[in-house]
């Protein structure tokens, strides 16, 4: 077995076992913490598709994360406050059903990514990094000053939304649901990476001229990847909002974009399980260092710096070595 596969299986096993063990021993908070890891990992997996596979360094993925969060907030708050969201063309009262919310989040995440991608994929390099940042900031300021859904105060939901057949208020059940989504998303991204589209996307990153010469338009490939990536991140946003039963413009902030990016780099760019390892390490550091000192950001900074300077390839690079192409 390749070492990377071994690491992946070990990570997955840990995600299955640890929370169950924490739950059994009454450490419910660790279940919540792992839920956070899993949801943020989904956001990272979304970004990794664009960034790792496609080489699209987006500094604006908070835009999609936030859109997902607000989809949850808006749908659920309308139902909660008995104010129909739509009366025309059909009556829609909002929803507290996660499958509905997730679907809407995917659609709106994809649409947002489509419009941002259409404009920003005309640029490349640093310009792309910065224009995606600019779009994220636009949405951030919009969310802060848009009064209908709470502005900077955000929106809070009394009760976590429902999923058929589960009691989502029980931490371990909600965790199981999130883990299932993570596994599904990982499976999807894995298949994409092996597919025709994935091959073209990787080629677009390595050598766009080559792709053109074989009659494939890199722009189309990148845009499609950006849209899928945005949709996945939006799904994570909706789930994150449900974890907190709360959504705020903070989800749109550039620091959020930065953190999602940190998960990917910390774990290993372009590696399937990279964002999972990255999110886990980040949250663990936040939890442990945060308990040690008020000034824990300093230590976090040094750890990140160490990873960039001395552990290229991130955690996965350390554990499983350099990625080797295979077919």
């Amino acid at each position, binding site marked *: 077995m390749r070492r990377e596969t071994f690491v992946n299986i070990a990570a997955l096993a840990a995600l299955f076992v640890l929370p169950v063990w924490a739950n059994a021993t009454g450490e419910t908070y660790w279940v919540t913490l792992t839920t956070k890891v899993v949801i943020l990992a989904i956001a990272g997996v979304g970004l990794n598709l664009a960034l790792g596979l496609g080489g699209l360094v987006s500094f604006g993925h908070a835009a999609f994360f936030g859109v997902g969060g607000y989809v949850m907030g808006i749908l659920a708050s309308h139902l909660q406050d008995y104010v129909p969201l739509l009366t025309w063309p059909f009556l829609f009262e909002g929803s507290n059903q996660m499958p509905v919310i997730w679907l809407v989040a995917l659609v709106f995440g994809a649409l947002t990514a489509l419009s941002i991608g259409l404009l920003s994929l005309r640029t490349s390099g640093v310009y792309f990094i910065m224009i995606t940042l600019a779009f994220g900031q636009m949405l951030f300021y919009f969310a802060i000053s848009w009064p209908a859904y*709470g502005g900077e105060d955000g929106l809070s939901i009394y009760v976590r939304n429902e999923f058929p057949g589960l009691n989502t208020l029980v931490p371990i059940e909600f965790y199981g649901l999130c883990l299932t989504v993570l596994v599904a998303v990982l499976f999807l991204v894995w298949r994409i990476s092996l597919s025709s589209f994935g091959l073209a996307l990787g080629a677009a990153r390595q050598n766009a001229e080559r792709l053109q010469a074989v009659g494939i338009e890199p722009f189309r490939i990148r845009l499609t990847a950006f849209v899928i990536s945005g949709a996945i991140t939006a799904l994570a946003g909706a789930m994150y909002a449900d974890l*907190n039963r709360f959504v705020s413009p903070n989800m749109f902030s550039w620091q959020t974009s930065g953190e999602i990016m940190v998960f990917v780099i910390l774990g290993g760019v372009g590696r399937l399980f990279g964002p999972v390892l990255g999110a886990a390490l980040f949250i663990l550091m936040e939890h442990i260092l945060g308990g040690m000192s008020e000034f824990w950001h300093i230590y976090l900074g040094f750890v990140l710096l160490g990873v960039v300077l001395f552990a290229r390839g991130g955690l996965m690079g350390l554990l499983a070595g350099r990625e080797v192409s295979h077919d």
Partner: protein
Amino acid sequence: MKLKSIALAAAMSALAIGAHAEGLKVGMITTLSGGGAGLGIDVRDGFMLAMKQSGRDDIEVVIEDDQRKPDIAVQLADKMIQSEKVDVLTGIIWSNLAMAVVPAATAQNKFYLSPNAGPSALAGKRCHKNYFNVAWQNDNLHEAAGAYAKGAGYKNTFILAPNYPAGKDALTGYKRMYGGDLAGETYTKLGQTDYAAEIAQIRASGADSVFFFLPGGMGIAFLKQYADSGVDLPVVGPAFSFDQGILQAVGEAALGVINTSQWNKDIDNAANSAFVDSFQAEYGRLPSLYASQGFDTANLLISAAGKADVKDQDAFRAALEAAEFDSVRGDFAFGPNHHPVQNIYVREVIKEGDVYTNKIVGTALENHADAYAGDCKM
């Protein structure tokens, strides 16, 4: 892995007298790192000072840093409720964080005592029997500023605030009590630091006074630039931009500015002078508004813990409602929506030796309650 788990003495006193000897666990979620940490640190220090003075060893306080991020605050609340099994939560500074945490905490049958934020929703439609605000409803200080402006005979005020909910509440609060004309009403970008354009508008507007609500660094920048612009219209604002912590950074530009507050260090009562002295002795700096609120919050909690066991929620709630503690503000009572009914004073910025501080020059509103109590159905 808690930041500081301060059991105020050995837990051996568990066998102590009375029905309330069970012990009480308090979770404090506040901002201790990053921008805005100064406010959280003051609340924490004021709170812990009261705890120390009370000498009660059956109250344990767990403190965590929310980094001013709402999502982190919610997760910390979950942690404190699920793992630490706290009975009471407190500490949040910012309205948006309070909106995220308070409904979740009260929904899980925990008490929440707010030492700073008082968003209108939590005072009105979404009030809760387990939610107590020990500071003010957000509009209060702005209403007092409006009342002051009316009393001072201002007829044409230029008002400005950042474009976010608290900013809108501020201007609404001011207008509620002011009643005169507006020379202009401007919303600035949250976090904006250059106000040249707004000051030019003020100059050109023909206003006779200026009201502003710009918390934190925004207020420092505005005041310095305003003083430097040569516009000399009187300025009124809520206490937040003139607090002990940031006044030194504004410097001379703040001298003489009128601001409104429910507390000042020169309020004449025994509790207050003892608080001011002991805070200075303990931490080596003058206490701020936030420190006073933290101190009051702790004393309210201690008074209730002296009367009832927190496990008996109804009794504990009644003890909180009674609010029988010596507030550093003087008289203190809760209205029907568990928000304070209190005096709000007019302060002026002065210089004492090398230190900029405030003195009380009048009372803007007496026994003032908030405007949302009517919407609250507990």
